[in-house]
């Protein structure tokens, strides 16, 4: 396939050269001076008109148009830059405000929290103190009561027994002996209860 193409190319080139050389014998129309003056004349006229019209009419318009566009674009860019700056400023302000208010909110929150915590702590401490005091008092009372109740009971029992004996017998009995008896009796009762 490649060989074929190369051969074809070669043949084509050969034929090409042949044709060109054959044409050479006919001469180049470019070197025939018959119409040279005419070509120069018309070239000067057409190119001259083209040059004059382009210079005087068309190119200034295009240049004007480009100039106005350039200035307009520059203006627009300037305004855009200005507006961008302004908006940046506003954004900064906005962010500052947001930050400030965030900080403020935080500080308010912290303050309130501390206040409440303080309050709670104070109240709790007071309450605990009160409670402790009351509990102490009550415990003291209880222990007092406990301590006293045995003696009192014994005393009451001895007095009651003495009165009873007095009523029954009609004479006074030595109170200390009665107390000893009552004590013995209560001991026995207690032991029974325990059993």
């Amino acid at each position, binding site marked *: 396939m490649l060989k074929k193409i190369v051969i074809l190319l070669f043949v084509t080139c050969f*034929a090409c050269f042949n*044709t060109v050389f054959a044409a050479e014998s006919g001469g180049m129309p470019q070197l025939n001076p*018959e119409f040279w003056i005419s070509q120069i004349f018309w070239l000067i006229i057409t190119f001259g008109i083209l040059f004059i019209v382009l210079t005087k009419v068309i190119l200034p*318009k295009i240049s004007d148009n*480009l100039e106005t566009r350039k200035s307009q674009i520059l203006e627009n860019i300037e305004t855009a830059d200005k507006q961008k700056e302004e908006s940046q400023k506003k954004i900064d302000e906005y962010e500052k405000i947001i930050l400030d208010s965030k900080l403020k909110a935080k500080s308010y929150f912290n303050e309130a929290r501390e206040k409440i915590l303080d309050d709670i702590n104070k109240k709790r401490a007071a309450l605990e103190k009160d409670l402790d005091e009351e509990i102490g008092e009550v415990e003291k009372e209880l222990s007092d009561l406990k301590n006293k109740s045995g003696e009192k009971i014994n005393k009451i029992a001895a007095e009651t027994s003495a009165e009873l004996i007095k009523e029954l017998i009609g004479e006074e009995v030595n109170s200390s002996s009665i107390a000893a008896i009552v004590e013995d009796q209560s001991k026995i009762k207690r032991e029974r209860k325990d059993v």
Partner: protein
Amino acid sequence: MASNPMYQFNVYRIGPEIKLGSVDISFTNASLFMVISSLAILIIFNLGAKKKTLIPDKLQLLSELSYSFVAKMISDTAGSKAKPYFSFIFSLFMFVLFCNMFGMIPYAFTVTSHIIVTFVLAAFIFVGVTIIGFMKHGLGYLKLFVPSGVPMVLLPLIVIIEIISYLSRPISLSVRLFANMMAGHTMMKVFGGFVISLGIVGGWLPLSFSVALTGLEILVAFLQAYVFAILTCIYLNDALNLHH
């Protein structure tokens, strides 16, 4: 004769013979395509320059892009001093470009494939640049032929070479454009002829060549117009800013 690849370059009279004295200035097919190219440029750019909207439409964009393209080309090669010559270089570039491009239309005539047309343009540029150079620098413009930092022994030789290269500018400028256009169109004609002569069996290869060549020739048409314009800018730069 139509199969002759050079036949397309024939100039013939359209309409009556016009004579100015003894000189024949008849309207020919070459003149017709010069007029068509100039008119096309004027119409397109006039339409492009007409509307003045902030957001350009297609024609306006085309004309404005061409404007800034040529403006950038000039300021890059010849600096800010070349601004007064902008409109000339713009016209030159557009004229050569449109003549080249109209030549790409089948059966159209390529104005720039004639040495006399390109030579007149190049000679005008050469004379103009030389005049500008002498007007700006006086006889100091001759320093262009004396490069600095050359040993005294070599100086005469260098000066002769510089003068020859300066004088050959219009020839190289015109022949470059003319030869490119002529060779390209001849090649396309030859390959087109092969498509016919090889027929449906073997005609596909030259046909594909022809298609590829058309793309190449459009590129060359643009490139040669660009080269023509940029070389003009470079010559102008030599005349405006004498660096030697």
